[in-house]
């Protein structure tokens, strides 16, 4: 069933697209803030890099889920799976948790990291505190990823 396969691929694509958008915006926000700080204090590159990289995980979670879909469908080689329309919908919907939690939490984690960058500018010793704050936001992307993995695992083709 070609439609089923298409829907499943759409799901995988959505996971990587939305997660990627969230991370791109998030990393962008934090990156802008850190360039501002580095213009005053170039020595801080190392510690700021950590904060800038942090909102990047959502994109990776999306990529990872998408890859699980690819493996499930056998798109890397071997026999191509032939999901019916319902299975196609199931796979697509299973991808939505990581896609949407990644999109929103990526953006907000970026904001938290950007203010963390300003904090590190004034309190260089407290680097880990904003990192923890950012991890609080990431929790929801992690939970979204978890559900997506469990759902994908549960769908039988």
């Amino acid at each position, binding site marked *: 069933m070609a439609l089923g396969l298409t829907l499943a691929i759409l799901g995988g694509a959505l996971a990587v697209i939305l997660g990627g958008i969230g991370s791109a915006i998030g990393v962008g926000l934090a990156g802008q803030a850190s360039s501002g700080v580095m213009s005053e204090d170039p020595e801080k590159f190392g510690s700021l890099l950590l904060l800038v990289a942090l909102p990047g995980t959502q994109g990776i979670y999306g990529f990872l889920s998408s*890859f699980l879909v690819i493996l499930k469908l056998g798109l890397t080689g071997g026999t191509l799976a032939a999901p019916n329309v319902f299975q196609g919908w199931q796979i697509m919907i299973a991808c939505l948790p990581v896609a949407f939690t990644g999109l929103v939490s990526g953006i907000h984690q970026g904001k938290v990291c950007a203010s963390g960058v300003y904090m590190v500018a004034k309190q260089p010793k407290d680097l880990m505190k904003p990192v923890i704050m950012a991890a609080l936001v990431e929790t929801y992307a*992690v939970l979204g990823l978890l559900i997506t993995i469990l759902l994908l695992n549960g769908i039988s083709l």
Partner: protein
Amino acid sequence: MAIAEIQKVQILAYSGLKQDFLSSLQEEGILQIEKADYENLGLNMPSTEVSHLDHLLHRLTNALEYLSQWEEKGFAKKLVSQKPQIQRQEREKVLKLDYVKLLEKIEDIEKKKNDTLLHIRFLEKEEEFLSPLMCLDLPIRLVAATESTEVILGSMPFSSFKELSSKKEEALWVHVLSQGKRTVHLLMVYLKAERESFEQLFKQLGFYPLYFTEPMLERAVSQDTVNDLAEKLRKEKTISGDKLQALENEGKDVAVYREQLMRIYDVLLNERGKFLSSKYLGETERVFFLEGWIKTQDIPRLEAKLQPYAELIQCYFRPPLKDEDPPIVLQNPSVGKPFELITKLYGLPQQGTLDPTLPLAPFFFLFVGLTVSEAGYGLLVALLSFLYLRFAKPKGGLKQFLTLLSVLGVATVILGTLVGGWFGFPIRQLMVLDPLKDPVSFLLLSLGLGFIQVWFGTLLNMISGFKNKNYLRAIFVQGGWLVLLPSLVVYALTKHSLWGILALVGAGGIVFFASPSRNPFSRFFGGLYSLYDISRYLADVLSYSRLLALGLATSVIAMVVNTLCQTALGIPWLGWLFAALIFVGGHLFNLGISFLGGFVHSMRLQFVEFFSKFFQSGGKPFKPFELESKYVEFM
């Protein structure tokens, strides 16, 4: 549990000893000086003046920065280079070198060098100015107005020059000195009588007059032409260049003192610290008074150190009073020591409460292992941090962090072998659980670990309740939760009524003792409301599901990297190269993000889920008066 015992120390001593005494304290670094209560004790506040030291330190910093250009460079060298060392007791000897003279010499070299460089730049500018005028074969001093003619040098755009040559001006003589692509340099002579009209014309043509500068005219004696002058400039430049080289060599000679200046800097830095700390002391004419905190176990060390002055010094020790807030030092056996870093990050415990370091250590160890769950990465991290610790011998925070990292690397090797793989290749014989094949069991494992930690946190809360003599609440409320939570879980699994009854007993304790109110109604309903906390416990336990998600993420990305490698191997001829690049790059990337994620999320589980059960932070860190160092290391 593991907070060191602290005592207040009060010292009275003869003022003549002040400097020696403070030096000894600084050497030992075991006592935190508190500001004396001058007013209540009727003491004088000593005056402290450190601006001369500040000035010297500033000059030293500049000199060291200047000398640093002769430092041996190279990343690898910097990575493992060690700081120069000084014996603590012998630090004053360092000051024997006449460093002020040395400083003056360095500053002099630096100034001369800058002046010479400036002079060379000036000469270059002049040469640049002269270069288009080389064809002028006249003595420079003769290029000046005569009685009836004006003589002028300058340049104009090429197009204007063409316009000028097309006009036949009787009273103007033009000589082309050089012709560039766009501009022409000219020497022009015209009648003074017609100056105004010519000036008007030149302005229209965009003529830009050039004048020899004062220094040029001074240099050019009698018959010197532009050529001669340029020759002179060149000679002068060579002389300056030689001078620069000589200064460079001189600087190189002085650079051997760099290490000594570093020592001097650090010794003076500590002299400054000593002066500054003396302002916490109270004084009378003959005696000074000092108050501070010291670890009980360090008291004999202090007494031994003060032995030589025993007759002139009187020390009193006592435990802290109720209303005093002594500083906190964590004290753990060497197994738990690296984990102190995590506690310190959150904040030190208050005096008289539990130190959470040891309780969190096994959980943190497990959690990082499970979230990274990649034995190969663990081995790499453990090995690298161990090697760095072994060869570069870092100190302080970095050392503690790397020790923690190597411990966590070991955790990852163990748990990675059990539930993950080696660089994406699982070793099936050693695996107890494959999260990719059986995620539900892994989820239950994560939640189970979470349940244990949350329950343990509540247990610690009960223990600290006993410590604070809050017996009723500890037994019935915390005890109630301790009974209620596991029996509820077992009841849900087995449906055996015994466990249901136990759960009810636990809940009863909470309902009747959670609310402090004396009114029986509000007490009952308040207690009932606090049963609602069960949702918080549930949320806390569910939060541990991240262990599965992060663990899976690492394994899947490792797998993805390996799949990509396999695909790359299919490329003809260069396949192996691409595959190797993807393998190394991909796994390094995964190592970075999985360790970052594993570290941060495991830490969050401690801070948010575990600490919230029992931990009270807000302790002040213990900051002993000790030798600080910037460039050297005190032995």
